[in-house]
C-alpha cells in the first residue's frame, strides 16, 4: 500500500533530500508557502484547494443570484438590461453547478476517500493535482468572458438553436462550450482516479461492504462522472464545431435537429443531478449516525439505494423534455421511470430517520444542517414527483415552480449537506472546530432565508410567472411574492457571510492553541484514527479493518448483558502521527503547466490560432516533462523501511 516515492520533505527535518534525481527534469522538493501549494500532489492539500476555489466561485455565483433578485424585486426592474440579465442568470447556473457544487463535492472526495479507506494518497497523485488545476483553469476561462465581450447567455443548459451564432452572436457561448469542456476533463480524470483509488487501495480487511457510506456514494458519483462526462463532451463538441466551424448539427433548415442537443445534454444532465446530490447524501450518512449515537439504519439498503439511483439516473432524462413534443409513448415511459426513481431516494430518507429514531441526538451544527437536508430535500423530492406527472409538468415547465423545485433539491439537498460536512470535518482538516454557536445561528438564518427565497417561487410558478424573464409588468399578482423572494435571498447571503466570519474568527481563536486532539465528535469511521489535523502521511500504520464503523468498534464493546460499553479511550485508539520516513509522492510542477496551456488553446480556437500554438506547446511540454520526470524514487530498493510503532 505504500507509495513508491521519496520521503516527504515534510517528514524530514531540513526539507531537502540528498539524492540527485535522474534525468533533466528535477522535481520540486515541496518547500514552503505558495510553492508548496502549486506543486503539491497531496490529496489533502488538493482537497483544500478544491474547497477554497469552489467557495470563491460559490460567492461569485451568489452575487450573481443577488443581482437577479435585485432586478426582479419590483415590477419593471431596471437594475440590469435584458441582455445582461441573460448573461447573469446563465452564469449563475453554470457557476453554481460546475464551479461550486461539483468541486465542493470533489473537495470532500479528495480529502476523505483515502482516509476513509485507509490509504496514504489517491491512485494517481499527479493526475489528481492536474484535475484541480484544469478545473480552476476552466473556471477562470469561462469567467474571462465577462471581460471579453460578454458572458454566455443561453441558459445553463444552452438549448439549441438559441445558442447558435444567429441568436447568440457574442463569444459567450464559445466560452461556455470550451470552458465546460475543460472542466469536463478535470471531472473525468478525477472520476477515473478516485474510482481506481476506491477499488484498489483499500486497507487490509476493508471489503466493499465495510466501506463508509460516504465512500460508497462517492464511488457511485465517480462512476457516474466517468460515464456522463463523455456525453456532455460530445454535446459540447457539436456545439463548438457548429459555432466555430459552421457544422450543421443544429441548423434546422438543412435538417439539423435541435432536439439532439436536448437529448445529449440531459443524458448527461440527469446523472449530473445525482453527481451533485449523492455526495451530500454521503456526508449526512456519516453525520447522522455520529450525532444520533447509533449505527446507520439498514447499511446495505443505503448502499444499494445509492447504486440504484446511479443506475436509474440514466433512464429518466427525457422528463426534462416533456414539453418538447417527444411523443406520448416516450412521455409515459419517462413518467413511470421518474416515479420509480423516487423509491430509492425515499428509502434513504426513511433510513436517515430510522437512524435518528431512538438515538441520543446531539444537536450540533453539523447535525442541524443534516436535518436541513432530510427535511428540505424531501420537499424538493415531493415537488419533483409532481413533475413526473406529465400533464402537470406541461403546466409547470419553464415557470418558477421548476426553479423552486430544483433549488429545494440543489440548495436544500446539496448546499445544506456540504455545510453539514464543513462543520463535521473542519477539525479533521484544520485541527480546530468552527464555532458551534455561530454555526447554529448560521443554520437557522440559512433555513429561514432559504424557505423565504424558494418557497414563494412555487406559488409564483403556479401563478404563471415564467423563469428567465428579465422583468414583469405590475398587475399579475407577482409583486408581493417577488419582494419576499428578494428579501429571502439577502437573508441567505447573510447566512453565508456568517459562515465566512465563522471561518475567520474560529481560525483566529484557535491560533496559538494546540490542535483539538483526537476524535472531537466520538465518530465512527476510519478517517478519525488519524490525528487532527491529518499529518502528511495520513496513517502511521495502515489499519487492519475488521468491521463497518471500524473506529467506533475499536472504542466500544459490549458487556455480558450486551450493553454497549467503552473499552478504549480515543487517545488509545488514535494514532499520534509520529511515523517517520513514510514514502510519499513527490510534488510536481507539470500538472499546473499542463493546465495553464488549456485555456490558451480555448482562446486560440475563438480568436487566433497563435494562442493555440502557445497553449498547445505549453500543454505538450507539461505532458512530456511529466512523463520524463525522474522516477520518483531512484533508490527504490534501499528506502528506509516504514516505522512500525505508532498506536496501540
Amino acid at each position, binding site marked *: 500500500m505504500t507509495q513508491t516515492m521519496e520521503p516527504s520533505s515534510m517528514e524530514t527535518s531540513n526539507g531537502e533530500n540528498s539524492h540527485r534525481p535522474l534525468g533533466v527534469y528535477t522535481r520540486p522538493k515541496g518547500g514552503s508557502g505558495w510553492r508548496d501549494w502549486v506543486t503539491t500532489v497531496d490529496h489533502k492539500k488538493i482537497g483544500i484547494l478544491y474547497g477554497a476555489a469552489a467557495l470563491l466561485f460559490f460567492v461569485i455565483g451568489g452575487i450573481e443570484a443577488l443581482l437577479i433578485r435585485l432586478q426582479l424585486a419590483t415590477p419593471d426592474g431596471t437594475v440590469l438590461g435584458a441582455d445582461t440579465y441573460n448573461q447573469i442568470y446563465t452564469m449563475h447556473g453554470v457557476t453554481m453547478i460546475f464551479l461550486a457544487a461539483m468541486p465542493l463535492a470533489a473537495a470532500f472526495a479528495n480529502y476523505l476517500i483515502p482516509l476513509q479507506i485507509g490509504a496514504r494518497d489517491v491512485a494517481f497523485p499527479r493526475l489528481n493535482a492536474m484535475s484541480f488545476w484544469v478545473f480552476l483553469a476552466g473556471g477562470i476561462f469561462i469567467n474571462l468572458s465577462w471581460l471579453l465581450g460578454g458572458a454566455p447567455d443561453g441558459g445553463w443548459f444552452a438549448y439549441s438553436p438559441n445558442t447558435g451564432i444567429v441568436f447568440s452572436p457574442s463569444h459567450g457561448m464559445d466560452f461556455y462550450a470550451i470552458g465546460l469542456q475543460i472542466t469536463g476533463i478535470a471531472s473525468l480524470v478525477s472520476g477515473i482516479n478516485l474510482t481506481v483509488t476506491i477499488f484498489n487501495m483499500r486497507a487490509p480487511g476493508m471489503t466493499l461492504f465495510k466501506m463508509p457510506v460516504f465512500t460508497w456514494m462517492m464511488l457511485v458519483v465517480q462512476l457516474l462522472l466517468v460515464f456522463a462526462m463523455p456525453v456532455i463532451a460530445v454535446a459540447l463538441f457539436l456545439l463548438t464545431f457548429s459555432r466555430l466551424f*459552421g457544422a450543421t448539427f443544429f441548423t434546422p433548415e438543412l435538417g439539423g435537429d435541435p432536439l439532439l442537443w436536448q437529448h445529449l445534454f440531459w443524458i448527461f444532465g440527469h446523472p449530473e443531478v445525482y453527481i451533485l446530490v449523492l455526495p451530500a447524501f454521503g456526508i449526512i450518512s456519516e453525520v447522522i449516525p455520529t450525532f444520533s449515537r447509533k449505527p446507520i439504519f439498514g447499511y446495505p439498503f443505503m448502499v444499494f439505494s445509492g447504486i440504484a439511483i446511479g443506475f436509474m439516473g440514466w433512464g429518466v432524462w427525457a422528463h426534462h423534455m416533456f414539453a418538447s413534443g417527444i411523443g406520448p409513448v416516450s412521455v409515459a415511459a419517462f413518467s413511470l421511470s421518474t416515479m420509480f426513481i423516487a423509491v430509492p431516494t425515499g428509502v434513504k430518507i426513511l433510513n436517515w430517520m430510522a437512524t435518528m429514531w431512538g438515538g441520543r441526538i446531539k444537536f450540533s451544527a453539523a447535525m442541524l444542517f443534516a436535518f436541513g437536508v432530510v427535511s428540505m430535500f424531501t420537499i424538493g423530492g415531493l415537488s419533483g414527483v409532481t413533475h413526473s406527472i406529465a400533464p402537470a409538468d406541461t403546466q409547470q415547465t419553464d415557470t418558477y415552480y421548476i426553479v423552486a423545485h430544483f433549488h429545494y433539491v440543489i440548495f436544500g439537498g446539496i448546499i445544506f449537506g456540504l455545510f453539514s460536512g464543513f462543520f463535521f470535518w473542519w477539525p479533521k482538516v484544520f485541527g480546530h472546530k468552527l464555532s458551534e454557536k455561530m454555526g447554529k445561528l448560521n443554520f437557522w438564518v440559512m433555513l429561514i432565508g432559504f424557505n423565504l427565497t424558494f418557497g414563494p417561487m412555487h406559488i409564483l410558478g403556479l401563478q404563471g410567472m415564467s423563469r428567465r424573464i428579465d422583468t414583469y409588468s405590475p398587475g399579475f399578482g407577482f409583486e408581493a411574492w417577488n419582494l419576499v423572494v428578494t428579501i429571502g435571498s439577502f437573508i441567505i447571503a447573510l447566512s453565508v457571510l456568517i459562515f465566512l466570519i465563522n471561518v475567520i474568527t474560529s481560525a483566529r481563536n484557535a491560533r496559538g492553541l494546540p490542535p483539538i486532539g483526537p476524535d472531537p465528535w466520538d465518530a465512527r469511521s476510519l478517517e478519525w484514527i488519524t490525528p487532527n489535523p491529518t499529518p502528511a502521511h495520513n496513517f502511521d500504520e495502515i489499519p487492519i479493518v475488521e468491521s463497518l464503523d471500524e473506529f467506533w468498534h475499536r472504542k466500544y464493546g459490549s458487556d455480558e448483558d450486551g450493553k454497549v460499553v467503552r473499552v478504549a479511550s480515543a487517545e488509545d485508539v488514535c494514532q499520534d502521527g509520529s511515523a517517520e520516513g513514510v514514502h510519499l509522492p513527490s510534488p510536481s510542477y507539470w500538472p499546473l503547466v499542463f493546465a495553464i496551456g488549456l485555456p490558451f488553446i480555448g482562446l486560440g480556437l475563438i480568436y487566433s490560432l497563435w494562442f493555440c500554438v502557445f497553449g498547445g506547446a505549453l500543454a505538450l511540454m507539461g505532458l512530456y516533462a511529466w512523463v520524463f520526470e525522474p522516477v520518483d524514487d531512484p533508490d527504490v530498493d534501499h528506502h528506509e523501511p516504514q516505522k512500525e510503532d505508532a498506536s496501540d
Partner: protein
Amino acid sequence: MTNQTHSEETTTGLSHNKLGMWVFLGSECLLFGALISTYLLYRGRFADGPAPGDIFDIPFTSVSSFVLLMSSLTMVLALSALQRGDERNNRLWLLTTALLGAVFVGGQVYEFTTFLREGLGYTTSPFSSAFFTLTGFHGVHVSLGVIFLMSLYVSSARGNLHKERAETVELIGLYWHFVDIVWIFIFTVIYLVPSPTS
C-alpha cells in the same frame, strides 16, 4: 498514467494503471456511443449535398478496415514478444502496428479529400457534419495510438523497454484494441448498413 505502480500490492490485484485504463475505456464507449447516435440520427439528412449511398467507396474502406483489424494481431504479437523477453521482435511488431495504423489514417485522409472533391464538405449537411465528426474522432484516436506506439518503439530502441515493463505495452495494446473494436461498430453503422441514396 505514468506512475510507477507495478510493484505495489492492490486490493483487486490489478495494477492501478490497468484498472485506470479499463475505466477510461468504459468512458470512451459513451463518447463513441454519443457520436454514433448522432450519425444514426443524421445519416438520411443530406440536404442538397451528396447522399451517403452515392459517395461511399465500400471496397476501398473495407481494405483499410482490414488493415486496421490486422494491426490488432500485430499488437498482440508485440506484447507477447516482450513478455517472452524478445525485445527485437517486440520492436518489429510495434513498428508494424504503428505502420498499419498510419496506413489506415492515410486511407482516411485520402477518403476525406475524395469526398471533399465530390462536394461533401464539413458544412454541407447534417449528414456530412456527423460523418466527418464521427470518423474524425476515430481517426484522432488512431493517430494518438500511433504516437503512443512510436513512443514505445523509441523507448525500446534506447534500451528502456524491458520485460518488466511489459504492462505498459499491454496498456497501449488495450487502447489499441479498443480503437479497433470501435471501428468495427463504426464501419458497420456507416458503410455496411444500406445507406440512403439521393
